[in-house]
Structures are given as C-alpha cells and as structure tokens.
C-alpha cells in the first residue's frame, strides 16, 4: 500500500466522527436513581426502570441535561429550547426495553464548531495546496459539529467461550445491566475532517473540553469515551462523496489516527485497482495494524423512531440555559491564551497545561508559591511532573525556584523530584542536605575557568578561529573540574567573556 502522504496528494479523505461520552461524573443513571458505577458487582445497580420491567417509567436526570447543555455551549452549539426524546427500536438483550431512549431530529445541541490548530509533523499530512499554512507549516481547520444528543447506554455483554470475548464461537453470553441507562451524549461532526491527524486532534480537543467541564472522566481505554470514525475518499478536485466505511473499536488517540490512515490507504488501493469500496463496518485490530470487516450494511436499519410518549417534550428555559452558561469554566483555548498573555508561557507549554484541568489546577497552585518562576514551573510541569506519582504544587514551586536561580541543573531537578516524590520534603532542603547546590560564586568559578583555559590551548585556538561551538566542550571541562558544583550557565558566560577578550 502507498503511504498516507502520497495517497492524500491524489485523493481527498472525508472523515466524520461520532463520539459517545458517558457522563461518568453524575451520581445516578439517565432515567432512574440507580448509582452510576463501573466497578460494582454485575447487576447490583439495577431497578425496574433500567431493567425495563413492565410498568416502570423513565424520569429524566436533570443533571444530565445540564451536562449536555454545558457540552453544547462549550462547543459553540445552538441550544434548542424545545426537543424530544425518541424511542429507537431494536431487539437485543443489551437494551432491556428493546428500544433505546435517544433524541430525534432535534437534539439539545445543534450546529456547533471547534477550530483545530494543526501544527508540526501532523500538519504535513495535509498537502500544502489544500489549505493556508503559516510560515511554520501550521494551519487552522474549522470543524463543524452537526449535533450533540442525549441518550442512554446499553448493558454490557460478555461473551464467554469464544476468542477475545467476541461473540463468534462463544458458548454463552452474560449481561451486566449496571451500565444500562448510563447517561450518554453523542456528538456527531459534519464530514469536515480531512486527515487522520485532524481527527486525532479533534478527539483530543473534545476530550480536553469535556474534562474541563467535568462532565466525564473521558477514558478511551475504559470506554467512557468512544469514537466511531466514518471515512471515504474522493479524487482531489471532485465534490461528490465516495462510499464510506465505519471504523469501530477505537480505544486510543493513536488507534483513531492509525485506523483512519490504514483505511484511507486501503480504500485508495482498492479504487486505484478498479475495485469497489463497500459500505461496511470495520473493526480496527491494533496488533495487526489493519481493519477487518465486521458487518456489511446492505440496507439502512429501520429503528421505527418516534417521540417517547413517557417523556414530555423538553422546554429549556432561558434561565436554565443561562445557569448552565455560568457554570461553564474557562475552556482550554482561553486558558492557553491567558497563560501566554499574562504569564508569558511558551504556547506549546501553555496549551499542554491548559488541556488537562487537573494539570492546570496544579500549575496555577504552584505559581502562587513562586510567582517569579512561572515559565520554569511550566517547564517542570510539562517535562518532569508527568513521571512522578505524588509531588505537590509547593514542591514543584520550590524546585522551580532553584532552577530559575540556576542553583541546580535540569538533570539535578529530575533527581530531586524523584527524591521528594511521595514525601513532604522541601526540594530546597534536599538540595542543601546533599550539597547539590551549584556554586554561583563568580570568583571561585573564574579560577576554574582560568585553569581549564590554560590546559585546553587547542580548543582556545579553535574558538578564536571561529569555531564557537567548542565552548560546549570547555563548559564540560569546567564542570568536571568543579566536580559538578559549578553552574554551567555561569561557566559558559565566564568562558565567553574570557575568550572574547
């Protein structure tokens, strides 16, 4: 098969995503008071309503409606004042009523958009001619969102006796209704995505947004956030859609990217060889790095959708929507811009910190302890903290101050952080106790510099002849001579001063 970049020169990929997100942070299910939990014994959080027992009736969870309205507001959707729940019928034991309660043509949230900033290596997937890129090769892709609707999740089925828990070859199927009735929001994009990287970024941005809203734990691995990708390709310059395939079983950002990449290349190969792409659902196999057919969709399923008569139409008042609006916190993009503007952070650091609400909270706490070391804190938060398990914001602030004062090197910072991880120890104290603090005494350092310069006459000559890079070697020599206690930055400064004389 050809490589993606090559394929995308001749073909345009048209990608749409359907993203299901369980509202895991709620306490109860969508239409009953059962506890929401993934961890309990199977079939312990159930009641007549979520088990679909005759005579039971659904009562909507108001907090779930608040969550979806917040999700809509955060993704620039129009909040529909009036919408309905519908019944979507299909016979399968994972849906206890044999219909799923979902929404019809009008969802709570319609017609939103998210703008993606695509940069770096990922931006190269999109041929330059098809989009306006800046000097660094980055571009902005506006992605329209068709709708976000509210629905309930089905029960979890476990197939026993077959391979990898699949139904094929299984001898029996077990059903855990704990998940049945979990509030689920489904976001459907317009087919505006053009590269696997854009799809990956969209998912990532959506996850960051929902995490910031606090409406879900957004775990792709645990399945609380699930993504189906629809993809078709068409010759560059044409406008008609090709036949699409649907990708299931995507449980990581990398899988999403790689599955789409594989599928685009596969479709191109089929079409270039004169074949036909069939409308089908395909399963991503990460270990074999390929998609395989799950089922062929010959006709559209008839779900016999109609408005659920047990649930009155929703009339969302302006006050309700306004109260949801007030509860939408600062979103990742705005937070990133603030970090750049008011703290002078590097944009990449700022967006990485702003993307995860827990990291952002940690960062903002740390900078209150050491307001002068903000960029250093950002650096430590982005590069060192992820490898730790239980460091505190105060420890990071203290450590960052040392770094900012050039009292320790970055390599030492990593070591110190490992030492204080999980303790209450102050990094300053650890550094002093272990004699790690680097000398910033210029007189003492100057002596070392003189000694090194006297010894390394070859390098001094090279420098004077124009090879300025050789200063790195000389800094190394100084560090060695001072047994690591000298500050490399100061050595660098002093060496340059002396050599330029």
């Amino acid at each position, binding site marked *: 098969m050809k490589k993606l970049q090559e394929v995308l020169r001749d073909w345009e990929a048209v990608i749409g995503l359907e993203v299901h997100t369980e509202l895991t942070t709620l306490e109860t299910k969508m239409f009953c008071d059962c506890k929401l939990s993934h961890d309990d014994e199977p079939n312990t959080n159930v009641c007549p309503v979520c088990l679909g027992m005759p005579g039971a009736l659904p009562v909507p969870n108001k907090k779930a409606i608040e969550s979806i309205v917040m999700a809509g507001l955060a993704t620039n959707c129009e909040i529909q004042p009036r919408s309905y729940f519908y019944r979507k019928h299909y016979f399968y*034991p994972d849906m206890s009523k044999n219909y799923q309660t979902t929404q019809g043509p009008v969802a709570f949230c319609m017609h939103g958009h998210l703008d993606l900033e695509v940069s770096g290596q990922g931006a190269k997937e999109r041929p330059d001619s098809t989009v306006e890129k800046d000097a660094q090769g980055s571009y902005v892709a506006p992605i329209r969102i068709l709708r976000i609707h509210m629905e309930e999740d089905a029960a979890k089925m476990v197939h026993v006796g077959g391979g990898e828990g699949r139904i094929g070859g299984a001898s029996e199927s077990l059903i855990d209704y704990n998940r049945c009735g979990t509030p689920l929001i489904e976001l459907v994009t317009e087919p505006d995505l053009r590269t696997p990287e854009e799809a990956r970024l969209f998912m990532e941005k959506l996850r960051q947004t929902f995490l910031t809203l606090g409406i879900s734990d957004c775990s792709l691995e645990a399945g609380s956030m699930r993504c189906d990708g629809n993809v078709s390709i068409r010759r560059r310059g044409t406008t008609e859609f090709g036949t699409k395939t649907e990708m299931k079983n995507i449980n990581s950002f990398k899988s999403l990217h790689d599955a789409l990449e594989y599928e685009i290349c596969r479709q191109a190969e089929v079409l270039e060889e004169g074949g036909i792409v069939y409308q089908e659902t395909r399963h991503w196999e990460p270990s074999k790095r390929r998609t395989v057919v799950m089922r062929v969709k010959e006709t559209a399923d008839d779900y*016999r959708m109609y408005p659920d008569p047990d649930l009155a139409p929703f009339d969302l008042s302006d006050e309700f929507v306004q109260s949801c609006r007030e509860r939408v916190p600062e979103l990742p993009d705005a937070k990133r811009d603030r970090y750049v503007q008011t703290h002078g952070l590097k944009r990449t650091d700022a967006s990485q910190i702003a993307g995860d609400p827990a990291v952002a909270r940690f960062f903002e706490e740390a900078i209150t302890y050491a307001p002068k070391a903000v960029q250093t804190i950002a650096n430590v938060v982005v590069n060192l903290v992820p490898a730790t398990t239980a460091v505190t914001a105060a420890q990071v602030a203290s450590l960052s101050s040392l770094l900012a004062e050039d009292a320790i090197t970055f390599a030492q910072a990593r070591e110190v952080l490992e030492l204080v991880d999980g303790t209450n120890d102050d990094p300053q104290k650890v550094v002093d106790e272990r004699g790690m603090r680097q000398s910033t005494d210029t007189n003492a350092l100057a002596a070392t510099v003189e000694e090194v310069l006297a010894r390394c006459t070859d390098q001094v000559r090279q420098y004077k002849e124009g090879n300025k890079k050789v200063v790195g070697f000389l800094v190394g020599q100084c560090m060695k001579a001072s047994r690591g206690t000298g500050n490399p930055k100061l050595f660098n400064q002093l060496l340059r001063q002396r050599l330029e004389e």
Partner: protein
Amino acid sequence: MANIDQLSARQIAAGIAAGDFSATEVARATLDAIDVREDGVQAFLQVSADLALEAAAKTDARRAAGEELGPLAGVPVAFKDNMHLIGTRTTCASRMLENYESTFTATCVQRMICAGATPVGKTNMDEFAFGSSTESSAFHRTNNPWDTSRVPGGSSGGSAAAVAAGEVTLSLGSDTGGSIRQPASFCGVVGLKPTYGAVSRYGVVAFGSSLDQVGPFGRSVEDVALAMNALVAGGRDTLDSTSQELPVDFVAQLEDSAEGMRVGIIPALMEHEGLSAEVRAGLGRARAALEDQGVQIVEVDLPNMASAIAAYYVIGPSEAFSNLARFDGVRFGYQEPGCATLAEQTALSRAHGFGAEAKRRQMLGAYLLAAGVYDKYYYPAQQVRTLITQDYRNAYQSCDAIMLPCAPTTAWRFGEVSDPTQMYASDLFTISNNIAGNGGVSVPVGREEGTGMPLAVQLQGPAFADHTLLRVARAVERGIAGTDAFVPGTVAPAFVGKGGELA
C-alpha cells in the same frame, strides 16, 4: 346486620371508624361474597385473601391504637391485573406474564392502600388491555353480572363486573380508548377516566403511554370521588414524569347545586346511525334530569371527531408495539424452551406468549412506525390529535361538560361481535377523549327495556376539571334517582345479597 354490597365506601370507612364493625369483618364478608359470587361472574384472576386480611388487621390495629384512619379505611378494592401489587402476580391476562410476580407496587395501588383500602385481588381484563369485551383474556371470560350471557365490556371488564356484582366496593381500571367508561356503562356502575396526568401511571403495564389513564369504578359518584381523592393525595408522582399535581377535593362540591351549569350536546352525534333507540332514550332521560336542576343544555360541535378512531388506531398500536417490545423472553415472562438461538427464542416466546389481538396490534404498530409509512400515518394522526384537542377547547368555551353516549348499544352477547373493526367502532364515543387527554365519566341512567341491561351516559370535561365533571355526574345521578329508573348503588339483582353478610 347489613350485607357488604349495600354499603358505600363512605359508610364502610365511617362504620369502621365508629366501631360498628371491624375492617377484618368487612374483609371476611368481602371474601365470602367473592367466594359465593365468583362462579357466576369470574371477575377475578387472583383473589389475595392473605393481603386483604393483613391490610384489614393493620387498619384495625391502627384504630385500636387510636391512630387516625384513612378516608377509605377498610374499603375493599380490586385492581385491574395490569397494576403491580407486591404479593400478587401481574399477568395482564396474558400467557406472556402468567407467572409474573409483581416486583414493586404501582403508585395508584399504593395510594389506595395508603388511604386505608383493603386490597382483595386482581381483576380480569382483555389481554394487555387490547379489547372492549374482556374476551381476549388468555385465562377466562368475565360475565356481565346483569346477564351472564353478555360481556361486561372491556378492557377493564373484571373491575367493572366485580363492583356491579357487589364483590367489592371500589376497583381501579385503566382507560386507553374507553376501557373504564364502556365497561362501567355495560355493568351499570360509575367509571371515571380522569384527565391524562391526574393519576400516576407508574407501575401500570403500559398499552398506549400517551393515552393510558387509571381511574376508579364505584357504585355511586360519591364513591368514585372518594377514590379520586385517594389517587391524587400526595400530589404529583415523581416516578411518572407525565403526572401532574391536582390539588382538589373531589367530594367537597359534589352536592353543590348544578343550577346555571352548562352541558353541551352534539346534535349530529345524538342522531348517529349506530346508536340504539334505548341508548338515545337514556340520553334524553339524563338531559331531562339535568334541565330539571337548572342546567342549561347548549349545542356544541366537535368537527373532527369522525377522524378520532382512525387516529387512535394509529397512535395506540404504535405505542403498544413499542411498549410490548420488552416482552422477549430474556429477563422475565414466557420463555420458549429448547431454542438454539436468541432470535428463535425471542420469536417463539412472543409467538406463543401473546394472544391474537396482542399480536395484531403490535404488527399494526410495527408497520405504522416503519420508515416511509410513519410519515403517512403517524404524523397525520398527531395532527388529528391536535385538531381534536382544539375542538374540545373551543367547545368548552361555551359549556362545563359535554354529554355523549358511552357506547352505541348496551352490553352484547358473547361472540356477538367477532369482527375486530366492528369492535373498534364501538369505541367511537369514548376514544376522542383519550386523544385529547381530557376526563370522562360514565353514569348509569336506567335499564334497557326488554333486556334489563344497564343504560348509561358519558360526560366529558375539560382537562383537570375532573372534580367539576363529577359534580355534573352527581347531578345526573341525583336526578335519575328521583325517578324510578335507577337507584344509585344498585348491585346486579342476580348477585345481590349472595354471601357477604357482615357478621
């Protein structure tokens, strides 16, 4: 001492409060009456003697402890078998649920019990409430107490017959297209379908969720009003999101003069060709009784009423198809043994668990909701629904209630109506009220000459004005009682006084 079938709900509650007799004595008399009369009526699918005696003992203990008794203390009540009551099966008169034990208690049942009522059992019905004669019950027929060769009406036929035969003082039924009012009229008792939302549907096995409404049967308007007080006490049911608060006292204004009230009649309907002469005469009798009390009769029109049956037989089956989808033999109900695949098990469980009418309605619904068909039928049916609702609203600008026939004829003989569409057409006068969601009540107005079968009129009222509706119903009852046509509270002659002596 008195026979239990001669006492009204109020008299029973008052007698127990006063110590004239105990709730246990009432329960025993009731069980005795059922024991003696049930062979002839077959109103019950299950008699819950233990539950009845237990509840009665509690009532007696409360009285002994000096606690306040509920307004229905010790009053024997039966429930249609689509209402859950822990300790009883809820079968919906279907093989599908033949052995289904209630896993919780319906709000309407609970509220009757909270008011002090003694639950005595579950009554027969058309399977899943699909029918107008109780003949589609999977278990047995129920006989009309006034003539046991005739149907009691349906689908709440068991609840109507049990009250008419004096087996219980009160019962609950459910009305999706006339299933309380029509059997009430066939059995000569009062039956109220309250406004949609007035009574919680939680725990009542759904037929048509947007049409279903629970309501009481009694032998007098006052007994029905007392039951309504119990059903709305406690306010809106948070377990039914379509239920609404109805903070009114149904009894308080019952005896107020009806003078000056306006009752609408629809002249074209009075001349309807299917209407029997006797039913028409009954309507005339009710009209005269109302006019005698100073009620003004005004002419109104419901121009879209002719479309009501068509709309109903789109909306009802569509909702039924959906509501009954859960009966698949996986988690509960009939499960076909020995199936190789899930698809086979689901198909055969449904094929053998449901009766003919239940299958007919579900297949109709499955067709009506199918892609391409939905737009042709379901959508126009909803438009008709809006039009009919508007028609009623317009009509109620000029009247407090509308008087209609309840059914075109009195109760027919078993097997007399076998064509389903003919059976459906008999709901002509009741269905539009479910479409609009308003309240309606059937009031006895005498007996048909020759057959001796009960005659009734139907009164319909605006949404959430069910207490006013009962006031008009009481005026009809009061006026009729003044003639020799009918005595309110009458138990069918073949059963009156058989067993049920209060010891």
